[in-house]
């Protein structure tokens, strides 16, 4: 099963290597990892990990055991907001601009660059939404994709994501 794990970590040298190293050394499967600074001392990470309950329990415990990890929370079973950002460059001669613009509107994406040969689009959303967007663009000719991997935050309200 796919698990979203949020980490609060010391913003120290090598903390990313420690976490990445833990996954490779113990053979855990990591789908994405995103890191961002919270303040001068602390960083936030969101990991997307696949594994059965047994593995996920070990992943959580092993992460907790790392001295630089302040807090581990598996948000999968909670109400959380999960978002990912993608930049995608699509082959787009001027004649195709209306078609692509229509898709941009449907997905509420943004056009961030345009040339005679391509359009670069930005979309934020859940993983399925981003996958759907990319699938839809495929026939036009996708030239490059940059995805951030998921970030997540627990909702205080009772809404679903």
């Amino acid at each position, binding site marked *: 099963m796919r698990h979203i794990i949020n980490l609060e*970590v010391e913003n120290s040298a090598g903390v990313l290597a420690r976490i990445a190293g833990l996954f490779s050394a113990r053979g855990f499967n990591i789908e994405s990892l995103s890191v961002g600074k919270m303040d001068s001392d602390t960083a936030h990470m969101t990991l997307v990990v696949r594994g059965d309950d047994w593995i996920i329990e070990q992943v959580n*415990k092993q992460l907790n*055991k790392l*001295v630089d*990890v302040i807090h581990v929370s598996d948000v999968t079973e909670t109400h959380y907001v999960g978002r990912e950002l993608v930049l995608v460059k699509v082959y787009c001669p001027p004649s195709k601009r209306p078609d692509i613009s229509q898709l941009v509107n449907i997905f509420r994406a943004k056009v961030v660059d345009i040339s005679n040969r391509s359009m670069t689009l930005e979309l934020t959303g859940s993983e399925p939404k981003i996958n759907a967007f990319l699938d839809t663009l495929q026939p036009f000719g996708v030239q490059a994709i940059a995805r951030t991997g998921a970030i997540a935050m627990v909702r205080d309200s009772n809404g679903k994501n």
Partner: protein
Amino acid sequence: MKGAQLIIEALKAEGVKALFGYPGGTVIDIFDRLKESDIPFYLTRHEQGAVHAADGFARASGKVGVCLATSGPGATNVVTGIATAHMDSIPLVVLTGQVATHLIGNDAFQEVDICGITRSITKHNFMVKDPEDLPRTLKAAFYIARSGRPGPVLVDIPKDIQQAEVMAPYPEQIELRSYRPTLKGNIQQLKKAARLIEKSRKPVIFAGGGVVSSNAQEEIRQLSSIIDAPVTTSLMGLGVFPEQHSHALKMLGMHGTEYANYAVQEADLLIAVGVRFDDRVTGKVDKFAPAAQIIHIDVDPTSIRKNVQVTIPVVGDIKTVLRDLNPLLKPRKNPEWLQQTQNWKQQHPLRYSQSGKVQPQYIIERLADLTRHDAIICTEVGQNQMWTAQFFNFRHSRSFLTSGGLGTMGYGFPAAIGAQVACPDKLVIDIAGDGSIQMNIQELATAVLHNLPIKVIILNNHSLGMVRQWQSIFYDRRFSQICLNRRTTCPPDCDQNPDHCPPAYVPNFVKLAEAYGASGFFIDHNDQVNDVLETAIATPGPVLVEVAIDKEENVYPMVPTGAPIHQMLRGMA
């Protein structure tokens, strides 16, 4: 105060009674300050010797072992020792020099990324990049090494940090927001455990190295006495329960006793304390303790449910947990179950053949008698280690020092040096094989020059015995590169017949001992054993005793890899 001086002050503040190490370019400043200090320094002949000695010191004393090495090759030479300590949860602080901060990343002379190299084999590691971080970092290193599940912590200190002025004082205490080991067991879990214990009819206590780390041998003995349960131990737990006790089942697992393995396979409750269910213990894991519910007490949550399913997990310091648990238990007797385990003991004791040649097991038994079981016994790795584990009949915690998890050949002798430094009044013996002892034989110089009266018993079978045993049993006697006596003049299809062997073993251990200024003895007949061992023990200074043993002698019983632990090979005896 300069960084180098602060390091010395930190060692003093932490009560470091011995420092093991080796100088080099990036630690000259520390050695310069060391010259002015009264911290005893033990100069080994190789950094690996230093780190194992620090480890032996830690295991024998229960204190943090400290070692100091230079950057580059000095640092890489301590890697095996760090991994050894990590696998066995031994508290170490390893200080390494590093090239100056402005050179880091430039492939400077004697530069390696030792923090990168040791990331997965340390409990934690640090590189100090700002002189003002040095005091706090050293404090954290000692705190992390000794608390929770102990382990090695490496601190990499660039040369310019050692030379810089440090204003911050050495802290008396440290609080780490991201590191707070759980020491007290959850009381609800303990109540559940108590109820489960009450219901069980065939309980077995399985004690491991965590009991040693936590100094909880008394609490284990109380637990066994209150609930009248037999006790088996892992290799790392040997000594926490006196093996002459009627409740003792001795060691569990691949080379454990038949009766311990049978008892665990029959048990309806396994009280696992400070163990991690290593594959050498469980054998085929889904056939391990099939009838038992398991109570697992450990300070490290990752050890719990890592290899086996557990009915009641309890996270906490063993001593603290047992002090809370024992009073919850009703005293009881299990006469039938104990009778059953006694029967297994009588029917399947540890034994060995009396072939007329010197039996290694006999040597171990004689050593146990001659020392009245009151010695610190170190071993190397392989057959020497397993025979010692089986036949010494340990009675005291911290009296058996061995590389359990990593299985590091060459560990025992330098560890004996550390143990002798920690316990100058104790008799310290290293039981070695002819293979292992040669992996750190250079430390004979350290032992002689520091007048450390360690007795090394080399069980010489001219072979890498444990590999030979596997090739003998599982590879149809296709021996490959296990003969340490093989030379170019040997026939390619050597039949392993000792009569055809070249006469002289290389090296001549007795002469080697003498070359280093130690004493050497040789045993090749049973009737010499008592006299020579007695003389060796009574001889002052380091002593090396070479015992010629039969290369066909194997370690039994033995559980083949992948078999359940009750399916043991018994051998010839």
